[in-house]
Structures are given as structure tokens and as C-alpha cells.
């Protein structure tokens, strides 16, 4: 389903839509939370600085004022405590939407997410479960240095019982966040912070773009959701398949343009559940596959994608599945643009892929 290039989202994905308005990704996420706080009294939000102040990225701005102190409040600086509390609330029957201020700071809560949230339903044979949605800004491109830039999706994708969702534009962000909150499983909802206020394509030397004018920035003001596990075909093409998510969707689009290669670009939107059918159909068609992610390459989610693609499309492949990713170093402050897998690296790899 094409939507980044200005097409309207397909009607099947919409419900309840009365009007749209132009939104940044921050606006769209805020709107999703607002809609859910309004519709469901069991939804509540807490996290560091999310209450009166409205979050360091302003995603929860105004929600405490509009919905009351109990619905959106500040939490102690204790990521483990935040997630443990959310799980307990979830087990009670609420649908908490905790925020972790940066995805880098999810790690102190890793045990809660893996040993508890992800396993509660299974081990209790369905007596208890944790319908929590953990929102967290992630990824680089903002000169945040090592601990405000990381992309930890691979370590979640490996955990049985967790879902991991990553939007790339305002329209998806809202629809996927609503679907995540309504989902009865624990969801890690990673928000590409570099996309909060504009569709960044990796051309960092160019002027900053805003969402205004982008097709996916026209967002319904009401309730709608995008089913988790459905990828979006952002660009149709015949020569190769590019798999990406988050910021890298825009980088890929730019890189494809630069390369002049007629690549098909798939925005995974959620990595668990993964839309394997869309991926396989595309690679069967193109015979070539390139995976782009910002996280370090080794052990990253690209490895899983690469393995899946060659397991299922081996005999259709005309060249090795290729990965373009961050280097196997920590995220370095001064070398942000050297580390960042930008459009030039993508274009070069794509060109190389066509030679294979």
C-alpha cells in the first residue's frame, strides 16, 4: 500500500474518520494518545517528564491538562520501575502507555520487558498478560552522541512474546500507535526521533524539511488503526527490493533516486510481527534484495531479514542479499554522518547489487 509519495491511505485502514489535518509525527503521536485517552478510560500514560511538561520531545504535550493528572503523569527516573509498574497495571486491566525518554535508556528495564512483560501470558496460561505499549524515541541523526542515538530493535525482535513497531511517517505513526495500544500483547513502539519534525532522508547537508506537504502528513483527526504486521510498499519497482523501516525508509528513497535503479522499497512498519509475505513476493519478483538499517550491522535485524529472504527466495536470487547498516562501533558524536548509513552508501550498494 503506497502512501508516502502523497497517495491517500487506502480506505480499508480507516475507521471513524471525520476530518484530517496536517501533522508532524509528534502531532500525530500526540493525536493518537489523545484519541485513546478519550476513548478508553483504561489508557494512561506515565514516564519521565511526560506530565505537566509534555515530554522532552513534546509528544505528550497538553495531555495532562486535557485529561487530568492521573491520566498522564511524571514518573521517577527508573526505567525498570516504570515498566514494572506498567506491567502490574496491565495485569490489573489497564492499558498503560509508558514512555522511555530515549530508547538507549530502555536497557535498565530490559529484564522487566523480557522476563516479565513478554512471558507473563505464556507462563500463566493466559491468566495474566501485559497489554502495555512502551513508546520510545530512537535512532540517530540529531548529534545526540552515543546514548541518544542507538537503534536497539534487534534485541527486541529476538524476544519471543514482544512485538516491535517502527513507523516512518505521521499517518503510520498514529495508526500504528493506536493499533499497538489496542493490542493485547506488549509492544515496543520505537519512534525515529529524527523524523519527529520532518521527513529526513539522510541528506544532512541540505536544509531541514518539514512534514508539511508530505502526503503522509495528512492525518485523520479521529480514530483509525493500521494492523500490526502489514508492511507498506513505498515505491514500486522491478529491479531490486529494498527493505527498511523508520528513518531509513526516507534514506532509502533518496538513495534509490540517486542510484537511478528501479528498486521496490518496502517499509516494514513492524518487525514483529513481520510481513513476510510482502517481502517474499517482492524479492521473488525482483530477484535482488538490499536491507538498510541504522543499527550496527553485526547481529542486527538485517541478519534475520537476510536469512529469511535467502531461505525463502534462494532460487530466485540473482545476487547476494546485501546489508547496509551502521558500522560495528558505538554511535560516535563527531562521526555521526560517517556512521550513519546515508543515501550515498545505499546507492553505491544498490549499484553493486545490480552488478551481482
Amino acid at each position, binding site marked *: 500500500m503506497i502512501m508516502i509519495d502523497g497517495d491517500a491511505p487506502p480506505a480499508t485502514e480507516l475507521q471513524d474518520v471525520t476530518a484530517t489535518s496536517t501533522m508532524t509525527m509528534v502531532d500525530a503521536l500526540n493525536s493518537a494518545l489523545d484519541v485513546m485517552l478519550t476513548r478508553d478510560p483504561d489508557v494512561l500514560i506515565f514516564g519521565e517528564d511526560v506530565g505537566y511538561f509534555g515530554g522532552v520531545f513534546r509528544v505528550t504535550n497538553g495531555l495532562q491538562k486535557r485529561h487530568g493528572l492521573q491520566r498522564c503523569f511524571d*514518573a521517577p527516573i527508573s526505567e*525498570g520501575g516504570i515498566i514494572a509498574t506498567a506491567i502490574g497495571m496491565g495485569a490489573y486491566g489497564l492499558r498503560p502507555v509508558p514512555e522511555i525518554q530515549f530508547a538507549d535508556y530502555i536497557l535498565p528495564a530490559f*529484564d522487566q520487558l523480557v522476563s516479565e512483560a513478554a512471558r507473563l501470558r505464556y507462563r500463566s496460561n493466559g491468566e*495474566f498478560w501485559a497489554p502495555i505499549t512502551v513508546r520510545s524515541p530512537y535512532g540517530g541523526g540529531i548529534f545526540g552522541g552515543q546514548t541518544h542515538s542507538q537503534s536497539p530493535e534487534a534485541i527486541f525482535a529476538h524476544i519471543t512474546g514482544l512485538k516491535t513497531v517502527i513507523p516512518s511517517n505521521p499517518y503510520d505513526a498514529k495508526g500504528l500507535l493506536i493499533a499497538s495500544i489496542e493490542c493485547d500483547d506488549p509492544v515496543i513502539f520505537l519512534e525515529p526521533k529524527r523524523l519527529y519534525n520532518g521527513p529526513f532522508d539522510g541528506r544532512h547537508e541540505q536544509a531541514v524539511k518539514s512534514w508539511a506537504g508530505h502526503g503522509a502528513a495528512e492525518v485523520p483527526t479521529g480514530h483509525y488503526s493500521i494492523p500490526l504486521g502489514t508492511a507498506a510498499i513505498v515505491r514500486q519497482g522491478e529491479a531490486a527490493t529494498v527493505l527498511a523501516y523508520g528513518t531509513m525508509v526516507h534514506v532509502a528513497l533518496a538513495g534509490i533516486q540517486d542510484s537511478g535503479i528501479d528498486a521496490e522499497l518496502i517499509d516494514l512498519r513492524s518487525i514483529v510481527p513481520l510481513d513476510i509475505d510482502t517481502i517474499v513476493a517482492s524479492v521473488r519478483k525482483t530477484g535482488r534484495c538490499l536491507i538498510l538499517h541504522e543499527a550496527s550491522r553485526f547481529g542486527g535485524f538485517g541478519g534475520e531479514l537476510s536469512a529469511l529472504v535467502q531461505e525463502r527466495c534462494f532460487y530466485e536470487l540473482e545476487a547476494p542479499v546485501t546489508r547496509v547498516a551502521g558500522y560495528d562501533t558505538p554511535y560516535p558524536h563527531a562521526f555521526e554522518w560517517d556512521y550513519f548509513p546515508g543515501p550515498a552508501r545505499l546507492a553505491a550498494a544498490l549499484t553493486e547489487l545490480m552488478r551481482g
Partner: protein
Amino acid sequence: MTNRPTLQLYIPEPLARPGEAVDFGGLVIPSAGSVDRPATDTPESELRLLPYQLIRVLDDEGQAVGPWKPEATPLQLLCGLRAMMLTRAFDERLFRAHRQGKTSFYMKSTGEEALGAAPSMVLGYDDMCFPTYRVLSWLMARGYPLTDLVNQIFSNAKDPLKGRQLPILYSARDYGFYSLSGNVGSRFGHAVGWAMASAYKQDDKIALAYIGEGTTAEGDFHEALTFASVYRAPVILCVTNNQWAISSFAGIAGANETTFAAKALAYGIPGLRVDGNDFLAVWAATEWAAERARTNQGATLIEFFTYRASGHSTSDDPTKYRPADEPNHWPLGDPITRLKRHLINEGIWDDERDVHLLGEVDNEVKVAVREAESVGTLGKSKPPIAEMFEGVFAEPDWRLIEQRLEAGITP
């Protein structure tokens, strides 16, 4: 920088090891009834000595004395006794079942039966307990079906948890008993969140959580207490200080430096230190804390001072690290013996009835084990393999569906 003393790394050690004489370090046991019982709305600033005292109700003669004496009815006390005796009988037999190869693992709560039983009776069925693996007596006090316990322990075809969990890591929602996991401490904060949710919904349910004294060292403990304090959650947070954490004595968790009840002071909430082998004291302390929780006064931390009379688990041999006769010297006695003496003292119990009850609970356990055995012990019977793939998510995704097929299961 000269003339400075040489630093030395201090490693705490217990007072006695195998082969040495038992030494409880001259443990001072205050007499029963000696601790004041403040009103539950007393400000925390006036409660700061409580964590250093020891709340006891039953004296050495089995009299219930002092301000903490609870208003439990004779019938309630008899039910408590029964729950504790049932727990012990169950532990004995299932421990043996492990030795006989009928299951992979078992853990006893010998000596700590009061810690689950009394709170289970004080709290309501709407409330929720967040257990450790050592509070089986909570379920016993509520009449959880024994056969289901054994089925779980045998991971057999009738296992209520469908073979997914290690033995004794029960889940029993209808009995106010939250799902256990193998990680120690990681549900302590869930209790706080659950209690906050009840307050958020303006309901009237409260939560109670247990944690071993060894496990108080985990970050989870602190995080749970911080949230409980900041949001004044209606929760009772209980440290079961049974002196041992596998082979590590309580000093490794800080017991040489202060009491576990004193950890409450860090959060500005009341901390009670309670004789955990005294059913009435456990009952009374739970009531006090429950009243605080129910009246929007927030959380209470309780240290139950007790002793792990058996090994840590079936994988453990405690004579390897503590004097073999240490359990016999525990100065606070045995909770069952002490409650029994009290009931005899009160004239509502006697040795004859006791012997009869012992036979009764033992038989109940025997019947339950036999019933579970007829379904099958570990490896002899198990739930359908399809259960391995259920419950990972609310609905399976393609991976689970494919793998179920791969494992030879037809849908």
C-alpha cells in the same frame, strides 16, 4: 597522602559454618507484647523506631499478649493451623516425589508457613498477592485444589499451566495469586502497579507482595518501593527474612548493618519488623498495613523475621554451608508448634485432635498425589505439544503457525 591507614576489604561471614557450634550471635528476642501498636494514621516521623523492634504476640507459653493481639476468631485460627499443616505435609510428600524422579524440581517453605497463611486470610479474594516460591500456604489457606498443584508439579496432561512452567511456579488468579516467574524480585514492582491501578480505577482492592531478604538487593526492590512511596500505592510489601538465600547468609544482603524493616525509612513509609514464626503477629501486622492501604495512607514495608528450616530447594544441601543442627536452634521456634500451643492454651485444641488433623492433611495430600500420578508424572504425561505454541501472543503469528506444522502438529 602518606601515613594513611591501609584499607582492607571486608567480606561478611556467618557466625557458624558446618562443624562449628550454632551461633545466632546472641540474637536478642524482645518479649512478646513489648512493642506499641500505633494508630494506622500515625505520621511516619513518629514511627521511626518500629523497624528496629520486633512485633510479637505469642509468648513462650502460647499466650497471646500485648497491643498487637489480633481479633482473629478461634475458627480462623484453626483454619490457619490447618493451612500450615497442609502446607507442611504437601512439602514433605512432594519433596519425596522429586527424590523418586516424579518431577524435576521442588521447593519447601518449612518454618515459614505462617507468612502465606495469615495474610491470605486477612486479605480478600479481590485483593492480589504477588508471591515468592515460598508462600504455598497462601493457596492452602484458600483451598486451592491440591491435585491441580501436583498436576502443575508433574507438568502432566492436566497441568493448569499446560506444561509451560517449572514446578511450583504457580499462577492462580481466582485465588488472588499472581503468576510466579523464575527470576526473583521481578514482580515486586508489579504489585505496586497493580495497586496503583486499583486506586486509579477508584476500586477498593489492595495488593500484597513478598520478596526474600536476599532478593532485597535487586534494583527491583528499590524501584518498587520508590513508586509505592511516591504514588502512595495501596500495597503491602513484605520481606521474608529467613536468614538464608541459597547458601548466602542474610549478612550478604546487609543484615549485619541494619534490619530489613529499616529500609522503609529510605522511602518515608512505615516499616514493621515482625516475628514471622508467630501466626498472630503476622496476622496483626498484615491487618495494620492493610488498614493503611485501604484508607489511602499508602504502602507499608514489613520484615517477617523467620528461618528457612529446610534446604533452598531439591537442588540444595544446606549442611554444606551451615551447621546441620542450626534449624533446631532457631530461637523463634516453629510457627505450627507455636500456634498449636496457643490453641491448646486457649482450650480450643488438643493433642488428640492434632494427631487426627495431621493424618487428615497427610491423607489429603496422598490422595491428590495419587490422582495426579494417575494422570502421569513428569515425562510420562504432558499436555498436547500444541500448547508449546499457544499463549506466546494473544494470537499466533506466521512463525508460530509454521513452526507448529514443522513440529508435526496438524491444526
